[in-house]
């Protein structure tokens, strides 16, 4: 401990702290700073923080001077203040600060101007300045971020934020002397320099030289600086669960910022492009503001009756099917490097379309509907759900809940399906996400969530092993943390068929054939066992069944695996040794592993590797299935899956059933003991499901083999869709219920590290749209399940009663960074990492499950020589319902593209932007080609966000035997130049 005096106050500090850090820690937070910023490397170049230190001849920079015992610091000494005035005066010489000469002083516009006012500096009147202003807005116009370098004070915070926090490095300092300026890449094009438009630079800039465009287009500057309120919420996109501050004016989110960098939220101040710029979709003019009822439903004698057409026309409409749209000609997609200014994309003008309309709802989709009152819509829904239940039993009904909705909403929906309709047919997109991980983790560890935290991967892992996860695009904020971990010295090993950004940066990249992961992991384990690198004490003390696995890996040597996977045996050995030697290896995986018809086996073989090396249950050795949606973990936790109630408690157990029946006030017999159907089983003719309620999901784009799914939904007796927009699925509905967006609700969400976080309402739903929770509660009451709750908080009180691992959760405790469950009691601080002592299995030991390698279901052959892989892009989200209506995001990736290797493209005579026809055994589509060495030869990658070229037309609906996951990641296709030319 070091003792020193600052401004006459005695304080103690850590010996390695700087004067600035010590002062701030002691609550003295008014030492001015410009170039210093929390968590950025210290450069000490602005000199505004200089302070007087007794006995020192010169002023010293508080941000860069270490404390010493007995130091006496005067932060606002005469000399220090004079120096600050000088610094500010010099900076003002090149700052457009005329408004600060007189009236504007009362309203400083930014951090820098506040210092100018605070230190009483007045800019030289125009004309009297020696140097001209820097160039103004010379940067290419963009819809998200622009630069006005005339206000830059060269603090270089943006450079360091981009380089050291986001680890991208788009910005740097160019020229020298009076010409010094901030430069973008080598040629001024941020996209070419790899910019991900995360906006970290915007966040740190003290003058607004780097600024967001969208707020300025819609609001006056004063309004932006002084919003009606700022509300803490949770980003609506991925499972990282970034906390965001929604700035609200006129009941509209005008801007999104991230909370303080020093707050211990999962994002630590950062967001990605989706979180910061993807907030405008709730205001899109497609937003539904009135319930819709399909024309043909009429009320006669107190009952709703269908009087419309029957047969094929029953759910028809004047639109093309997704299959049909797939065959149309398309615009040539831009190569990523020129994906910048939309106006420069001539193709869009030629298409003669408003840019915002390509992913939006065509007017014709509304034709089969009429606007209705809530009473009508809910009455019809209630009548039909109850009619089908009465006629065919509750199991003829099913519901897709939503991983984009809160825990409370998911809970109320599953409660009403189980409690009022007596069926367990309730599932959500986890089925197409981490269901296989859950199946494998349940078998091996009896757990369903990550063991660790993102922080521990960032700060404590020595080795980070990433399998089938494109983290920098799908979970960008976590991706940046992984890059930071690598910079601090962690070794990165990536197993991925594509050369993703992390694969490109990895110390070892295992570029295997899609779907051959089992062979890869097994061979790694084979080598580890052969060399005796396994963690013998851990295996002996904490696991059972290793001998069987030891036997089962014997035959699969790295040489054998090299033939199967295409990865050189030497590389497999190297990766195995790095993994086993750790000392602390964190294991991450995502859809690349799970979305296979043998996904459970893929994950199981990875878990075997992890357990054999003892890489779990220590801080830094985390098991992290990286969760896709912002509440896919929570929706599962609160029981929106067919086999369990909340907390993964089986529906088959009469004792458990009795407990829920009691809390819900229904007779126990009314709850079904039969496990329900899963997403992929429901959308099948043999499922017997005749009526459905879909909340916030769009299965017609997300389900495998779309043509089949689209047909299936058309055959239903009744379909209610609860969504923000008339989606591809909602257009087939009988009733469409307009709900609330992420900004228009209070509720809790669980991120990928089991962190329960509270999102707070920022705006009210537009028009007649209602809060999701309110819709569900009313429907529940109408269906006869009494639901007295009025607020999300009421619902949470009920959830914690039936969810032992959440028992200590209250809304009050969720303030701040939230709580990582298990939180068994009101005093429990939450659990950052699990399994240091035992696993939640019966004997407390992890179970090895031997896995045999089996080839993927469809291997390429002469007729279908390519392997098609699907996945996400940075700028889009799943079925595009939200992101294609978010202006900034949509402009970066405006059209569907397929990535193809340059050599394959050349062999097929395909050039950048050309259209190709892609055909699988199911279907075919036409799509524009992007030539990219991210994909290996013989493989193509098609993102699944685009209705007009929906990847899932082609995917294979064959299912994983355990988790009923479809083979989404890997199917054999044929590629030929399309007969139609691209629109250019």
């Amino acid at each position, binding site marked *: 401990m070091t003792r020193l005096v600052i401004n006459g106050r005695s304080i103690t500090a850590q010996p390695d702290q700087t004067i600035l850090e010590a002062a701030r820690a002691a609550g003295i937070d008014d030492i001015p700073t410009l170039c210093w910023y929390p968590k950025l490397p210290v450069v000490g170049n602005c000199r505004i923080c200089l302070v007087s230190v007794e006995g020192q001849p010169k002023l010293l920079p508080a941000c860069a001077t270490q404390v010493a015992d007995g130091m006496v610091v005067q932060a606002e000494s005469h000399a220090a203040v004079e120096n600050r005035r000088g610094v500010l005066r010099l900076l003002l010489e090149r700052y457009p600060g005329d408004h600060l000469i007189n009236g504007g002083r009362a309203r400083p516009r930014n951090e820098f101007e506040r210092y100018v006012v605070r230190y009483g500096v007045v800019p030289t009147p125009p004309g009297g300045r020696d140097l001209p202003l820097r160039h103004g807005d010379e940067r290419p116009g963009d819809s998200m971020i622009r630069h006005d370098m005339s206000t830059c004070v060269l603090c270089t915070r943006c450079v360091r934020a981009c*380089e050291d926090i986001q680890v991208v*490095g*788009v910005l*740097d300092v160019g*020229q020298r002397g009076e010409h010094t300026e901030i430069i973008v890449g080598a040629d001024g094009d941020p996209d070419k320099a790899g910019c991900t438009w995360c906006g970290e630079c915007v966040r740190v800039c003290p003058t607004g030289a780097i600024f967001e465009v969208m707020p300025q287009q819609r609001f006056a500057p004063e309004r932006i600086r002084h919003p009606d309120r700022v509300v803490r919420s949770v980003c609506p996109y991925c499972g990282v669960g970034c906390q965001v501050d929604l700035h609200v004016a006129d009941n509209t989110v005008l801007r999104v910022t991230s909370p303080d960098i020093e707050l211990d939220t999962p994002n630590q101040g950062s967001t990605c492009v989706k979180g910061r710029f993807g907030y405008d979709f709730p205001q899109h003019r497609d937003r539904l503001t009135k319930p819709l009822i399909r024309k043909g439903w009429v009320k006669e004698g107190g009952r709703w009756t269908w009087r419309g057409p029957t047969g094929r026309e029953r759910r028809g409409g004047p639109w093309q099917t997704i299959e049909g749209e797939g065959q149309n000609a398309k615009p040539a997609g831009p190569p990523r490097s020129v994906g910048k200014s939309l106006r420069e994309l001539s193709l869009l003008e030629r298409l003669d379309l408003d840019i915002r309309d390509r992913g939006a709802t065509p007017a014709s989709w509304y034709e089969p509907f009429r606007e209705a009152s809530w009473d009508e819509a809910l009455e019809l829904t209630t009548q039909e759900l109850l009619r089908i239940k009465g006629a065919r039993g509750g199991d003829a009904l099913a519901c897709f809940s939503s991983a984009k909705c809160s825990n409370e909403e998911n809970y109320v929906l599953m409660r009403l399906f189980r409690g009022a309709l007596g069926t367990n047919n309730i599932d959500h997109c986890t089925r197409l996400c981490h269901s296989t991980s859950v199946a494998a983790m349940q078998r091996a560890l009896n757990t369903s969530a990550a063991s660790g935290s993102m922080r521990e991967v960032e700060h404590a892992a020595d080795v980070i092993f990433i399998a089938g996860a494109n983290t920098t695009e799908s979970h960008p904020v976590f991706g940046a943390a992984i890059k930071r971990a690598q910079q601090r010295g962690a070794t990165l090993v990536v197993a991925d068929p594509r050369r993703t950004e992390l694969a490109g940066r990895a110390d070892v990249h295992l570029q295997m054939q899609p779907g051959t992961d089992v062979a890869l992991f097994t061979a790694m384990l084979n080598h580890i066992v052969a060399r005796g690198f396994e963690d013998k004490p851990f295996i002996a003390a904490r696991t059972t069944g290793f001998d069987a696995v030891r036997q089962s890996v014997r035959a699969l040597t790295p040489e054998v695996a090299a033939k199967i996977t295409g990865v050189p045996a030497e590389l497999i050995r190297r990766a195995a040794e790095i993994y086993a030697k750790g000392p602390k290896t964190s294991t991450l995986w995502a859809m690349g592993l799970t979305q296979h018809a043998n996904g459970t086996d893929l994950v199981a073989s990875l878990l075997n590797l992890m357990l054999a090396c003892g890489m779990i249950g220590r801080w830094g050795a985390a098991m992290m299935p990286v969760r896709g949606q912002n509440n896919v973990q929570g929706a599962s936790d609160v029981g929106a899956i067919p086999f369990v109630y909340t907390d993964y408690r089986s529906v088959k157990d009469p004792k458990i059933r009795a407990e829920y029946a009691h809390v819900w006030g229904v007779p126990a017999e009314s709850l079904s003991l039969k496990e329900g159907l899963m997403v992929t089983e429901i959308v099948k003719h043999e499922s017997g499901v005749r009526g459905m309620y879909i909340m916030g999901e769009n299965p017609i784009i997300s389900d495998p083999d779309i043509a089949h799914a689209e047909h299936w939904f058309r055959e239903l007796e009744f379909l209610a869709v609860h969504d923000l927009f008339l989606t591809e699925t909602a257009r087939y509905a009988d009733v469409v219920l307009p709900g609330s967006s992420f900004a228009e609700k209070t509720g809790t969400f669980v991120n990928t590290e089991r962190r329960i976080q509270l999102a707070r309402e920022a705006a009210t739903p537009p028009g007649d749209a209602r809060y999701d929770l309110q819709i569900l509660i009313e429907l529940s009451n109408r269906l006869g399940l009494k639901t007295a709750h009025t607020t999300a908080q009421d619902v949470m009180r009920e959830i914690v009663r039936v969810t032992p691992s959440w028992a200590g959760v209250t809304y009050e405790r969720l303030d701040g960074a939230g709580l990582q469950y298990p939180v068994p009691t009101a005093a429990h601080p939450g659990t950052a990492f699990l399994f240091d002592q035992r696993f939640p299995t019966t004997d407390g030991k992890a179970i090895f499950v031997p896995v045999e390698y089996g080839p993927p279901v469809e291997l390429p052959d002469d007729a279908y020589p390519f392997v098609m892989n699907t996945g996400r892009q940075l700028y889009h989200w799943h079925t595009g319902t939200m992101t294609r209506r978010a202006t900034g995001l949509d402009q970066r990736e405006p059209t569907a593209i397929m990535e193809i290797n340059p050599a394959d493209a050349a062999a097929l005579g395909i050039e950048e932007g050309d259209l190709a026809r892609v055909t699988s055994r199911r279907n075919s589509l036409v799509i524009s080609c992007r030539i990219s060495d991210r994909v290996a030869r013989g493989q193509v990658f098609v993102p699944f966000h685009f209705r007009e070229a929906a990847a899932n037309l082609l995917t294979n609906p064959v299912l994983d035997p355990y988790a009923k996951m479809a083979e989404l990641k890997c199917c054999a296709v044929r590629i030929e130049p399309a007969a139609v030319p691209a629109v250019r």
Partner: protein
Amino acid sequence: MSASARPTHDAATEPYQPVFAGKVLEELQSLLGRYPTKQGALLPALWLVQRQRGWISDRDMTEVAAVLGLTPAYVKGVVTFYTMYHQHPVGQNFVQVCTTSPCNICGAEDVVRALLQATGAKELGATSPDGRWTVIEVECLGACGFATPVLINDDFIESVSPEKVPDLVKRYR
């Protein structure tokens, strides 16, 4: 700076002939052996580019960045910091004249004028229409006692006066 090269997924679409191929790549590799980090070889790597191309384009900087595992902006920052890297094409003969005070007093301005006239270059920094000459002024060349020194490519010529300029220029035709 980044630990390794960023993936090339945004490779420019326009055709580009890399500098570092064949012999030049070999030269770079032997160069890399002399520095503890790849970043350390940045200045000489840029020299190689300038030797091959005569100047360093944005696209070349991106290539250097990729090869050395740096960011394009960092490379650009270095190129623009030093005056000796050309960011624009220059003539086959590159002339640098000292115009710092001592030489200035001794008539360096006249030497400059004479050079512009003899070479046909319109102004300082501009290249003559025949593409052969670019003249720039530089700070002290360390030969103040032999004003005015002129550097033509790598040749150092002392005591240049306006009268000597036409002959001098002829020698490099």
